[in-house]
């Protein structure tokens, strides 16, 4: 056993349905807002936008209500900031050096938890925007008149520009970086377990590995041939002990 679970099935479903419906929403929304198609097409795209919004909304609600413990762990990982988290900003996780040969800060990357500081910031912003877009979207659709014109305008621009800014961050930050981190990418997207190798976890997420993962020695165990084979250990999570 040399793998450790990074993304549970619930997280993977949430994330991937969210990502796909996000881009459907973003593309239809942008075409409609910037008038990039004729009326008929825009009408049709708007229909898709609303239905994708339904999927998007229920996907998020399902995640927090059906897998509250995973949502809790996610938020805990995102919200816990220590000295090393802040130290990450000194060299921005070494990415500028790695990708663009820009030398800033120390060579060494401060050890990070399950998410590095950049991910924490980005994901918190993403989750905030997901909620904001769901709320503003449905208010704009169903409850125009309970808001008054001023609030309506605020909601409208928050919806439009909030989604555009977030899409830019996702498209030019989140996605390229996630593709660069191959094991994480596979863990998140492959049809199958959301695991990464222990080696990968130790290297990229040392603090997560150190704090949350315990290696339990294998005891009283048999291999597939029925032979005792108690060498080695399996990773388990501290809160599962």
């Amino acid at each position: 056993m040399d793998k450790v679970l990074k993304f549970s099935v619930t997280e993977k479903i949430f994330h991937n349905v969210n990502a796909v419906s996000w881009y459907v929403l973003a593309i239809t929304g942008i075409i409609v807002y910037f008038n990039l198609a004729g009326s008929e097409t825009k009408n049709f795209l708007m229909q898709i936008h609303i239905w994708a919004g339904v999927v998007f909304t229920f996907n998020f609600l399902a995640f927090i209500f059906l897998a509250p413990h995973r949502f809790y762990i996610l938020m805990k990982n995102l919200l816990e900031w220590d000295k090393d988290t802040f130290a990450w900003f000194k060299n921005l996780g070494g990415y500028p050096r790695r990708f663009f040969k820009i030398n800033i800060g120390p060579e060494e990357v401060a050890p990070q938890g399950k998410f590095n500081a950049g991910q924490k910031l980005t994901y918190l912003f993403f989750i905030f925007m997901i909620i904001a877009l769901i709320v503003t979207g449905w208010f704009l659709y169903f409850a125009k008149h309970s808001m008054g014109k001023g609030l309506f305008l605020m909601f409208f621009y928050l919806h439009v520009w909030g989604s555009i800014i977030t899409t830019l961050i996702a498209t030019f930050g989140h996605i390229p970086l996630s593709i660069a981190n191959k094991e994480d990418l596979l863990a998140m997207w492959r049809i199958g377990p959301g695991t990464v190798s222990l080696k990968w976890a130790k290297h990229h997420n040392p603090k997560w590995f150190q704090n949350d993962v315990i290696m339990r020695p294998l005891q009283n165990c048999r291999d597939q041939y029925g032979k005792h084979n108690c060498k080695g250990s399996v990773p388990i999570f501290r809160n599962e002990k």
Partner: protein
Amino acid sequence: MGVQKIATFSPSEKTFTGGGTFLPGEVKGIIRINPNKCVGCDTCRHHCPAGAIKGSLGVTHHIEEDLCLSCGQCLVNCPFGAIEQMSFLDEVLSRLKDPDYTVVAIIAPAVRVALAEEFGAPPGTLTVHRMHAAFKKAGFRIYENNLAADQTIMEEGYEFIAKVKYWLLGDKTPELEKFAEHPLPHFTSCCPAWIRYAELYWPDILPHISGAKSPQQMAGATVKTWVALRLWNIDPRKIYTVGIMPCTAKIYEASRPEFKSAFYWLKEKGHLPEDTPPFPDVDAVLTTRDAAELFRCLNINPLNVSPEKETDITEVYTGGATIFGNSGGVTEAALRTAYCVLSGQEPSSWNIEAVRGHTTGVRTAKLAIPLKPLGGKKANFHICVVNGVKNHLEPILEDVVIGKSPFHFIEVMNCPGGCINGGGQPVNPMGTSWIDPLLPLPLKA
């Protein structure tokens, strides 16, 4: 809090050509959506009483002229300021400069309440005297719309009385014969958007609607006849009347071809040369916003003009008409008249409060009037005030059409809350009128 800037445009050739649901000469296309500014948020469509706005969410909307009432409700409610109004300001400004013309302002009460807002003061801070002084400074003479409203109320009150006599008291004397075709319930007629709505969508209701002209039209005709000949001694052809209104539909009303009463009367009485081309009773209408723009063009701030006492009798008015701009106001004023005549006495309290004000889209009240011809026997009159044609009026009209209406008197104001919230009023960027359908606010003049 400031007000939202509303773009205007000037009338074009096409404006007066008629066609579709418009007669030649009638102003069409008063309200239009600027496709470059419309984001397709679909708000306006939910405010349109006539279903004249086409477009779905996300799609640039447009107004079907032939269905449109020109009420301007879409305009005041568009959060993006994408809806524009046709304005006759340029024409009025050039008439004001022309020494040959006497330009007369017919000022509706709801204008005063709102004009202050355009100059950054709380609604209602502008006094009548100060506002009159400002219009005079701009070169107008004044005919208080309130004075005309008094006329309308008398006219409408007596008309209602006649209908009651004919239909309820069985008085079939020859002079009441014509009311055989005008059954109860009686509908008010002073809101031009409502009239056009009835004409386009509920023609069966037309016989029920009062034959009284709106205050604006009475004022126009009176200025060009009685005032011109008896009071001011000027040539009616050299009078240019301008309605100053909270309303965009009034622009349309003034252009209706039947409103040339002064011309026909003057002609008949030999006051006009044979070759005089017909002229309207009201030459132009400026909305409250237009009037504010006019003051800005002329560098006048009405809030800083020193107030003057009335100089013309045409500037004076009674309290009865001040409430005209309120929803329920017309009804209350007309009922005061009806009460007096039918009962031969004054009502115990002048304020028949149950109908005035604005709490829901439809307000009803019961008024017991002791009928003199029946030896003081009390009869209950059922009164209904509709605030906002949208969402509220249809079931009431349906009852009337099938002969099941419980009402005797029905006031219809197209705009939620009445003219105070009309399509020509300063546009509040917070859209107080917006929450209206959900949380009706008390809007008092």
